[in-house]
């Protein structure tokens, strides 16, 4: 985190909590497969959730402080970062696009951590190809009837409510979102998933069987609106994952440097071996470039610039790829010690693989980043 940002109360408090508490327990939560709900509530209540629900409210500094917070969470524990990301993007979407009085009451309870929410997009048969979702709504007298299965849902096992992406049975092209409380009839957690990475994020499968949802709980009801809101949510999610991956790389790099300085082989420290120096140099340049891209995306978001969407996608793509590499090299440099299942480098490697899949897989970004290159006004292009 930048020294300047540490002066900000929220960034400072999150950094301290991440370093003094989350870091100490991250391996345990990875092993048990669950970050305690109380810890998530505490992080929300520090003020991070409220700040994340409406980053523009705090002016330009809001986005920079948020980036710093997600970097610190990512350095400490990706499972925690994932849970807080989801709480943040759902809170943002409710505040931005669900402008009803009940949204305000939910946002207050989410801000202090009393309520945890999940974003339910992925399905057993649908990952990147979100057009293929099979969760359907049928119109009823006072609302809609919801049927379908959502899988790989972060926070799913502990969520009090879900922001569910579904399709109209009559209009197979458009999506809409529904705010569905867990206590509703027809909503059940069908499985808590034993993930390899982001193990503590309460990833679950949720079943919706004839759940009746009132009309005022539908966002983006006309199909096109649903598509836009889903994209808006994913764009925000990418911002948090990108910064989390900068933190993850930082954790890997710190341990790798320490190892290289103190571990001796063939009569000298690892840092004096040319091939090790190459590994560390590449890790460092990856870390710096990821950080620079995240800062550029953050500045653009703070300015509410349309280019922020492409810059954020590029930052996520690059930072996640570099995080996989950093964790992989960290395991490598730790040798046999890093190959023990309980070693932090193993957690980082498993977490980093998840980061490269979520919020747009590597291939999704490889297919779409070129669109933003065409848009880039710094690349002069004459029609």
């Amino acid at each position: 985190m930048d020294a300047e940002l540490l002066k900000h109360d929220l960034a400072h408090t999150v950094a301290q909590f991440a370093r003094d508490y989350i870091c100490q327990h991250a391996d345990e939560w990875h092993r048990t497969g669950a970050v305690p709900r109380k810890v998530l509530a505490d992080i929300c209540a520090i003020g991070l959730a409220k700040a994340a629900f409406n980053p523009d409210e705090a002016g330009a500094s809001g986005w920079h402080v948020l980036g710093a917070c997600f970097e610190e969470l990512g350095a400490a524990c990706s499972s925690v970062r994932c849970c807080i990301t989801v709480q943040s993007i759902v809170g943002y979407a409710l505040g931005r696009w669900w402008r009803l009085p009940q949204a305000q009451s939910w946002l207050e309870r989410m801000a202090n951590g009393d309520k945890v929410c999940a974003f339910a997009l992925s399905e057993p048969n649908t990952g990147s190809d979100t057009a293929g979702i099979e969760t359907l709504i049928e119109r009823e007298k006072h609302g809609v009837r919801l049927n379908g299965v959502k899988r790989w849902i972060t926070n799913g096992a502990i969520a009090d409510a879900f922001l569910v992406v579904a399709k109209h049975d009559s209009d197979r092209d458009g999506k809409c979102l529904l705010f569905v409380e867990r206590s509703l009839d027809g909503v059940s957690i069908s499985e808590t998933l034993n993930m390899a990475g982001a193990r503590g994020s309460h990833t679950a499968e949720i079943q919706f069987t004839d759940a009746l949802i009132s009309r005022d709980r539908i966002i983006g009801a006309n199909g096109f609106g649903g598509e836009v809101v889903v994209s808006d949510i994913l764009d925000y999610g990418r911002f948090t994952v990108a910064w989390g991956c900068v933190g993850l790389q930082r954790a890997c790099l710190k341990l790798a440097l320490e190892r290289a300085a103190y571990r001796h082989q063939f009569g000298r420290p690892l840092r004096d071996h040319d091939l090790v120096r190459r590994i560390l140099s590449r890790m460092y340049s990856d870390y710096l470039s990821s950080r620079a891209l995240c800062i550029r995306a953050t500045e653009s978001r703070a300015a509410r610039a349309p280019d922020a969407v492409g810059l954020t996608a590029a930052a996520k793509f690059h930072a996640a790829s570099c995080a996989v590499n950093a964790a992989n090299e960290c395991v490598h440099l730790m040798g046999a010690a890093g190959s023990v299942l309980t070693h932090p480098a193993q957690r980082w490697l498993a977490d980093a693989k998840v980061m490269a899949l979520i919020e747009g897989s590597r291939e999704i970004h490889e297919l779409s980043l070129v669109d933003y290159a065409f848009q880039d006004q710094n690349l002069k292009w004459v029609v």
Partner: protein
Amino acid sequence: MNDSVSMEKKIHDFVMLRLKLQDLSRDTDIFETGIVGSMFAVQLVRYLETQFNIELDDEDLTLDNFRSVAALTSLATHKMRLR
């Protein structure tokens, strides 16, 4: 140049500069071109809101409001009147 003409020109330039279309009339359906999707709509939301100092709501997010330069201009004009 009156307000709505200059507004339409701004929106036209924004879309043109970014999409680099060979031909963009005020009624060209930009979503039918196949080169943009809902992420471009997110960019349009951000552009309209910052450029014209308006705030879009859930019910404004319709294809009819977003499909062309003419539609975007009339959406922005409408929202500015409500401001």
